[in-house]
Protein backbone atom coordinates (compact mmCIF):
# COMPACT_ATOMS: atom_id res chain seq x y z
CA UNK A 1 0.00 0.00 0.00
CA UNK A 2 2.79 2.29 0.97
CA UNK A 3 4.44 1.57 -2.33
CA UNK A 4 1.23 2.25 -4.21
CA UNK A 5 0.80 5.62 -2.51
CA UNK A 6 4.37 6.53 -3.33
CA UNK A 7 3.88 5.45 -6.90
CA UNK A 8 0.71 7.52 -7.20
CA UNK A 9 2.44 10.54 -5.70
CA UNK A 10 5.31 10.16 -8.12
CA UNK A 11 2.90 9.77 -10.98
CA UNK A 12 0.99 12.86 -9.91
CA UNK A 13 4.19 14.89 -9.55
CA UNK A 14 5.36 13.68 -12.91
CA UNK A 15 2.05 14.56 -14.53
CA UNK A 16 2.15 18.04 -12.99
CA UNK A 17 5.65 18.62 -14.28
CA UNK A 18 4.68 17.44 -17.72
CA UNK A 19 1.58 19.56 -17.87
CA UNK A 20 3.30 22.90 -17.30
CA UNK A 21 3.19 23.80 -20.96
CA UNK A 22 0.66 22.52 -23.46
CA UNK A 23 2.23 22.13 -26.87
CA UNK A 24 -0.16 21.76 -29.77
CA UNK A 25 -0.13 21.71 -33.55
CA UNK A 26 3.63 21.27 -33.71
CA UNK A 27 5.05 20.80 -37.19
CA UNK A 28 8.31 21.22 -39.03
CA UNK A 29 8.64 22.37 -42.60
CA UNK A 30 10.25 19.72 -44.77
CA UNK A 31 13.41 20.26 -46.75
CA UNK A 32 15.10 19.14 -49.95
CA UNK A 33 18.33 17.09 -49.59
CA UNK A 34 20.86 19.94 -49.84
CA UNK A 35 18.90 22.31 -47.65
CA UNK A 36 20.49 23.07 -44.30
CA UNK A 37 17.82 25.15 -42.58
CA UNK A 38 14.14 24.99 -41.79
CA UNK A 39 11.62 26.04 -39.18
CA UNK A 40 9.43 24.45 -36.52
CA UNK A 41 6.05 25.87 -35.61
CA UNK A 42 3.63 25.18 -32.75
CA UNK A 43 1.17 26.60 -30.29
CA UNK A 44 2.15 26.93 -26.65
CA UNK A 45 0.02 27.66 -23.64
CA UNK A 46 0.57 27.55 -19.91
CA UNK A 47 -1.36 28.13 -16.72
CA UNK A 48 1.46 30.25 -15.30
CA UNK A 49 3.89 32.87 -16.52
CA UNK A 50 6.77 31.17 -18.24
CA UNK A 51 9.34 32.04 -20.84
CA UNK A 52 10.55 29.90 -23.74
CA UNK A 53 14.30 30.53 -23.67
CA UNK A 54 15.89 27.83 -25.81
CA UNK A 55 15.31 24.82 -28.01
CA UNK A 56 17.37 21.95 -29.30
CA UNK A 57 16.96 19.00 -31.61
CA UNK A 58 19.12 16.05 -32.61
CA UNK A 59 18.45 16.85 -36.30
CA UNK A 60 20.03 20.31 -36.16
CA UNK A 61 23.43 21.61 -35.11
CA UNK A 62 22.05 25.00 -34.16
CA UNK A 63 18.54 25.81 -32.95
CA UNK A 64 17.38 29.35 -32.27
CA UNK A 65 14.14 31.13 -31.47
CA UNK A 66 13.40 33.53 -34.30
CA UNK A 67 11.05 36.32 -35.10
CA UNK A 68 10.10 37.18 -38.65
CA UNK A 69 8.97 40.72 -39.28
CA UNK A 70 7.90 42.51 -42.41
CA UNK A 71 9.09 46.10 -42.48
CA UNK A 72 8.13 48.07 -45.57
CA UNK A 73 7.82 44.85 -47.57
CA UNK A 74 11.26 43.68 -46.48
CA UNK A 75 11.35 40.36 -44.63
CA UNK A 76 13.70 40.34 -41.65
CA UNK A 77 14.39 37.35 -39.49
CA UNK A 78 16.15 37.70 -36.16
CA UNK A 79 17.08 35.56 -33.22
CA UNK A 80 15.24 36.67 -30.09
CA UNK A 81 16.22 35.89 -26.47
CA UNK A 82 12.90 34.34 -25.57
CA UNK A 83 9.13 34.34 -25.79
CA UNK A 84 6.78 34.94 -22.88
CA UNK A 85 3.87 32.65 -22.14
CA UNK A 86 0.96 34.36 -20.43
CA UNK A 87 -1.78 32.28 -18.78
CA UNK A 88 -4.96 32.24 -20.82
CA UNK A 89 -3.18 33.15 -24.05
CA UNK A 90 -1.93 30.91 -26.79
CA UNK A 91 1.55 31.75 -27.98
CA UNK A 92 1.52 30.86 -31.66
CA UNK A 93 4.75 30.10 -33.47
CA UNK A 94 3.52 30.23 -37.04
CA UNK A 95 4.54 31.38 -40.53
CA UNK A 96 4.60 35.16 -40.61
CA UNK A 97 5.62 35.44 -36.96
CA UNK A 98 7.76 33.35 -34.64
CA UNK A 99 9.47 30.05 -35.36
CA UNK A 100 12.05 27.72 -33.95
CA UNK A 101 14.88 28.01 -36.48
CA UNK A 102 16.66 24.75 -37.25
CA UNK A 103 20.11 25.25 -38.77
CA UNK A 104 23.00 22.99 -39.75
CA UNK A 105 20.49 20.24 -40.46
CA UNK A 106 22.08 16.82 -40.33
CA UNK A 107 19.51 15.12 -42.52
CA UNK A 108 16.78 15.85 -45.01
CA UNK A 109 13.39 16.34 -43.36
CA UNK A 110 10.83 14.39 -45.37
CA UNK A 111 7.06 14.44 -45.16
CA UNK A 112 5.89 11.93 -42.58
CA UNK A 113 9.15 12.05 -40.60
CA UNK A 114 9.05 13.30 -37.05
CA UNK A 115 11.47 15.70 -35.44
CA UNK A 116 12.13 15.54 -31.69
CA UNK A 117 12.42 18.97 -30.12
CA UNK A 118 13.41 19.85 -26.58
CA UNK A 119 12.11 23.20 -25.41
CA UNK A 120 13.62 24.94 -22.41
CA UNK A 121 11.34 27.12 -20.33
CA UNK A 122 12.17 29.45 -17.49
CA UNK A 123 9.93 30.29 -14.58
CA UNK A 124 10.52 34.03 -14.06
CA UNK A 125 9.50 33.84 -10.40
CA UNK A 126 11.85 31.10 -9.32
CA UNK A 127 14.45 31.60 -12.09
CA UNK A 128 14.40 27.84 -12.55
CA UNK A 129 14.48 26.14 -15.86
CA UNK A 130 12.89 22.93 -17.07
CA UNK A 131 12.58 21.21 -20.39
CA UNK A 132 9.73 19.67 -22.26
CA UNK A 133 9.83 17.41 -25.28
CA UNK A 134 7.65 17.51 -28.33
CA UNK A 135 7.70 15.31 -31.41
CA UNK A 136 6.82 17.42 -34.40
CA UNK A 137 5.66 15.77 -37.63
CA UNK A 138 7.20 17.04 -40.84
CA UNK A 139 4.99 18.62 -43.48
CA UNK A 140 6.73 17.92 -46.78
CA UNK A 141 8.11 21.02 -48.46
CA UNK A 142 5.45 22.25 -50.86
CA UNK A 143 2.71 20.19 -49.18
CA UNK A 144 1.25 23.02 -47.16
CA UNK A 145 1.87 25.83 -44.75
CA UNK A 146 0.73 24.10 -41.57
CA UNK A 147 0.57 20.75 -39.80
CA UNK A 148 -0.34 18.08 -42.31
CA UNK A 149 -4.00 17.09 -42.05
CA UNK A 150 -4.43 14.04 -39.87
CA UNK A 151 -0.73 13.75 -39.19
CA UNK A 152 -0.42 16.17 -36.33
CA UNK A 153 0.08 15.19 -32.73
CA UNK A 154 -2.38 17.16 -30.72
CA UNK A 155 -0.44 16.99 -27.53
CA UNK A 156 2.97 15.84 -26.55
CA UNK A 157 4.72 15.61 -23.23
Amino acid at each position, binding site marked *: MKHLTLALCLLAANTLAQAQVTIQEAWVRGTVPSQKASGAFMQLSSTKNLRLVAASSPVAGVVEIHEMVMAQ*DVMKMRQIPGLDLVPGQVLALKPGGYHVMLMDLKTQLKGGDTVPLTLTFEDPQTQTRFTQQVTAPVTALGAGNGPQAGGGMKHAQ
Partner: protein
Amino acid sequence: MAFFHKTNALVRWLLTFSVLTGLLGGCGRTDDSTAAAFKGMDITGVNYGNDFRLTDFDGRERTLADFRGQAVLLYFGFVQCPDVCPTALARAVEVKHLLGAQGDRLQVIFVTVDPERDNSAVLKEYMAAFDPTFLALSGDAQRTRETADHFKVYYKKIPTGSSYTMDHSAMSYVFDPLGHLRLVMRHEQTAQDYAHDIAQLLKTP
Protein backbone atom coordinates in the same frame (compact mmCIF):
# COMPACT_ATOMS: atom_id res chain seq x y z
CA MET B 1 18.43 52.15 -49.80
CA ALA B 2 16.97 55.53 -48.85
CA PHE B 3 15.36 55.69 -52.25
CA PHE B 4 13.97 52.25 -51.78
CA HIS B 5 12.27 53.18 -48.53
CA LYS B 6 10.92 56.39 -49.98
CA THR B 7 9.55 54.45 -52.89
CA ASN B 8 7.92 52.02 -50.54
CA ALA B 9 6.37 54.81 -48.52
CA LEU B 10 5.00 56.21 -51.75
CA VAL B 11 3.73 52.81 -52.81
CA ARG B 12 1.97 52.39 -49.45
CA TRP B 13 0.41 55.82 -49.72
CA LEU B 14 -0.72 55.20 -53.26
CA LEU B 15 -2.14 51.84 -52.24
CA THR B 16 -4.14 53.43 -49.42
CA PHE B 17 -5.22 56.22 -51.72
CA SER B 18 -6.31 53.86 -54.46
CA VAL B 19 -8.26 51.73 -52.01
CA LEU B 20 -10.02 54.82 -50.64
CA THR B 21 -10.83 56.24 -54.05
CA GLY B 22 -11.93 52.79 -55.11
CA LEU B 23 -14.36 52.70 -52.20
CA LEU B 24 -15.59 56.23 -52.77
CA GLY B 25 -15.82 55.64 -56.49
CA GLY B 26 -18.01 52.68 -55.76
CA CYS B 27 -20.65 54.88 -54.12
CA GLY B 28 -23.51 55.46 -56.49
CA ARG B 29 -21.70 54.00 -59.46
CA THR B 30 -22.49 50.60 -60.77
CA ASP B 31 -20.53 50.49 -63.98
CA ASP B 32 -16.94 51.51 -63.45
CA SER B 33 -14.63 49.03 -65.07
CA THR B 34 -11.48 50.94 -64.15
CA ALA B 35 -12.02 51.23 -60.39
CA ALA B 36 -10.03 48.68 -58.37
CA ALA B 37 -9.13 46.76 -61.51
CA PHE B 38 -6.24 45.08 -59.72
CA LYS B 39 -5.77 43.85 -56.18
CA GLY B 40 -2.06 44.52 -56.48
CA MET B 41 -0.34 47.81 -57.18
CA ASP B 42 -0.48 48.75 -60.84
CA ILE B 43 3.02 49.92 -61.79
CA THR B 44 2.56 49.84 -65.56
CA GLY B 45 5.10 52.10 -67.26
CA VAL B 46 7.72 52.30 -64.50
CA ASN B 47 11.27 52.75 -65.75
CA TYR B 48 12.78 49.85 -63.80
CA GLY B 49 12.49 46.08 -63.82
CA ASN B 50 12.16 45.68 -67.58
CA ASP B 51 14.48 42.68 -67.98
CA PHE B 52 16.99 40.33 -66.39
CA ARG B 53 19.80 38.14 -67.62
CA LEU B 54 20.35 35.21 -65.27
CA THR B 55 21.14 31.50 -65.41
CA ASP B 56 18.53 28.83 -64.73
CA PHE B 57 19.17 25.64 -62.76
CA ASP B 58 19.94 23.77 -66.00
CA GLY B 59 22.69 26.21 -66.89
CA ARG B 60 20.78 28.11 -69.57
CA GLU B 61 20.90 31.88 -69.73
CA ARG B 62 17.44 33.38 -69.44
CA THR B 63 15.93 36.75 -70.18
CA LEU B 64 12.37 37.95 -70.00
CA ALA B 65 11.93 37.45 -73.76
CA ASP B 66 11.97 33.68 -73.16
CA PHE B 67 8.58 33.93 -71.50
CA ARG B 68 6.61 35.89 -74.10
CA GLY B 69 3.01 34.73 -74.19
CA GLN B 70 3.04 33.87 -70.49
CA ALA B 71 2.41 35.92 -67.41
CA VAL B 72 5.50 35.90 -65.18
CA LEU B 73 5.40 35.95 -61.39
CA LEU B 74 8.85 37.00 -60.21
CA TYR B 75 9.99 36.57 -56.62
CA PHE B 76 13.37 37.16 -54.97
CA GLY B 77 14.24 34.86 -52.07
CA PHE B 78 16.58 32.14 -50.80
CA VAL B 79 16.33 28.44 -50.09
CA GLN B 80 17.51 28.37 -46.44
CA CYS B 81 14.43 30.42 -45.58
CA PRO B 82 12.00 28.81 -43.15
CA ASP B 83 9.03 31.06 -43.54
CA VAL B 84 8.41 33.76 -46.12
CA CYS B 85 9.88 32.08 -49.24
CA PRO B 86 8.11 28.71 -48.91
CA THR B 87 4.94 30.60 -48.01
CA ALA B 88 5.27 32.62 -51.22
CA LEU B 89 5.96 29.52 -53.30
CA ALA B 90 3.09 27.59 -51.70
CA ARG B 91 0.88 30.53 -52.60
CA ALA B 92 2.20 30.44 -56.18
CA VAL B 93 1.16 26.77 -56.39
CA GLU B 94 -2.32 27.76 -55.24
CA VAL B 95 -2.45 30.68 -57.69
CA LYS B 96 -1.65 28.36 -60.58
CA HIS B 97 -4.35 25.99 -59.41
CA LEU B 98 -6.88 28.82 -59.09
CA LEU B 99 -6.15 29.88 -62.67
CA GLY B 100 -7.39 26.50 -63.88
CA ALA B 101 -6.71 25.88 -67.56
CA GLN B 102 -4.96 29.26 -67.73
CA GLY B 103 -2.47 28.12 -65.10
CA ASP B 104 -0.17 26.79 -67.79
CA ARG B 105 0.28 30.36 -69.00
CA LEU B 106 1.80 31.43 -65.70
CA GLN B 107 5.57 31.10 -65.29
CA VAL B 108 6.73 31.34 -61.70
CA ILE B 109 10.35 32.51 -61.41
CA PHE B 110 12.36 32.49 -58.19
CA VAL B 111 15.56 34.54 -58.18
CA THR B 112 17.96 33.67 -55.39
CA VAL B 113 19.51 36.49 -53.38
CA ASP B 114 21.84 33.92 -51.81
CA PRO B 115 23.88 32.57 -54.76
CA GLU B 116 26.65 31.62 -52.32
CA ARG B 117 24.55 28.74 -50.93
CA ASP B 118 21.82 28.28 -53.51
CA ASN B 119 23.58 26.33 -56.23
CA SER B 120 21.71 24.99 -59.24
CA ALA B 121 21.20 21.53 -57.68
CA VAL B 122 19.50 22.82 -54.53
CA LEU B 123 17.47 25.34 -56.53
CA LYS B 124 16.18 22.60 -58.83
CA GLU B 125 15.27 20.33 -55.91
CA TYR B 126 13.59 23.21 -54.13
CA MET B 127 11.42 24.28 -57.08
CA ALA B 128 10.48 20.67 -57.84
CA ALA B 129 9.16 20.32 -54.27
CA PHE B 130 6.56 22.94 -55.14
CA ASP B 131 6.04 22.57 -58.89
CA PRO B 132 8.55 21.24 -61.43
CA THR B 133 7.52 23.98 -63.86
CA PHE B 134 8.69 26.68 -61.46
CA LEU B 135 12.01 28.10 -62.54
CA ALA B 136 14.84 29.32 -60.32
CA LEU B 137 17.42 31.75 -61.62
CA SER B 138 20.73 32.86 -60.22
CA GLY B 139 23.74 34.97 -61.04
CA ASP B 140 27.12 35.59 -59.50
CA ALA B 141 27.33 38.05 -56.62
CA GLN B 142 27.64 41.05 -58.91
CA ARG B 143 24.89 40.02 -61.33
CA THR B 144 22.59 39.24 -58.42
CA ARG B 145 23.19 42.69 -56.94
CA GLU B 146 22.68 44.40 -60.31
CA THR B 147 19.46 42.49 -60.94
CA ALA B 148 18.07 43.25 -57.48
CA ASP B 149 18.96 46.92 -57.86
CA HIS B 150 17.25 47.02 -61.24
CA PHE B 151 14.09 45.62 -59.62
CA LYS B 152 14.39 47.84 -56.50
CA VAL B 153 14.76 44.69 -54.44
CA TYR B 154 16.62 44.94 -51.16
CA TYR B 155 18.64 42.09 -49.67
CA LYS B 156 21.32 41.84 -47.02
CA LYS B 157 23.25 39.03 -45.41
CA ILE B 158 22.69 38.86 -41.63
CA PRO B 159 24.90 36.63 -39.44
CA THR B 160 23.04 34.37 -37.02
CA GLY B 161 24.56 31.61 -34.90
CA SER B 162 27.36 30.02 -36.90
CA SER B 163 25.46 30.73 -40.11
CA TYR B 164 23.61 33.60 -41.74
CA THR B 165 20.18 34.52 -42.94
CA MET B 166 19.04 37.02 -45.56
CA ASP B 167 16.85 40.05 -45.14
CA HIS B 168 15.08 40.58 -48.42
CA SER B 169 12.17 42.26 -50.14
CA ALA B 170 9.23 39.90 -50.12
CA MET B 171 6.96 41.32 -52.79
CA SER B 172 6.25 39.66 -56.11
CA TYR B 173 6.32 41.27 -59.54
CA VAL B 174 3.92 40.32 -62.28
CA PHE B 175 4.66 40.71 -65.98
CA ASP B 176 1.98 40.48 -68.66
CA PRO B 177 2.29 38.09 -71.63
CA LEU B 178 3.87 40.88 -73.68
CA GLY B 179 6.73 41.09 -71.19
CA HIS B 180 5.73 44.38 -69.59
CA LEU B 181 6.08 44.81 -65.85
CA ARG B 182 2.55 45.51 -64.67
CA LEU B 183 2.03 44.81 -60.98
CA VAL B 184 3.71 44.53 -57.62
CA MET B 185 1.92 42.24 -55.17
CA ARG B 186 2.55 42.30 -51.45
CA HIS B 187 3.39 39.24 -49.38
CA GLU B 188 0.30 39.77 -47.23
CA GLN B 189 -2.01 39.38 -50.22
CA THR B 190 -3.86 36.13 -50.80
CA ALA B 191 -3.62 33.57 -53.58
CA GLN B 192 -7.08 34.75 -54.65
CA ASP B 193 -5.76 38.31 -55.03
CA TYR B 194 -2.84 37.11 -57.11
CA ALA B 195 -4.99 34.83 -59.28
CA HIS B 196 -7.55 37.59 -59.83
CA ASP B 197 -4.91 39.97 -61.16
CA ILE B 198 -2.99 37.41 -63.22
CA ALA B 199 -6.24 36.18 -64.83
CA GLN B 200 -6.87 39.74 -65.97
CA LEU B 201 -3.39 40.08 -67.44
CA LEU B 202 -3.79 36.78 -69.27
CA LYS B 203 -6.81 38.16 -71.11
CA THR B 204 -4.37 40.17 -73.22
CA PRO B 205 -3.00 37.99 -76.01
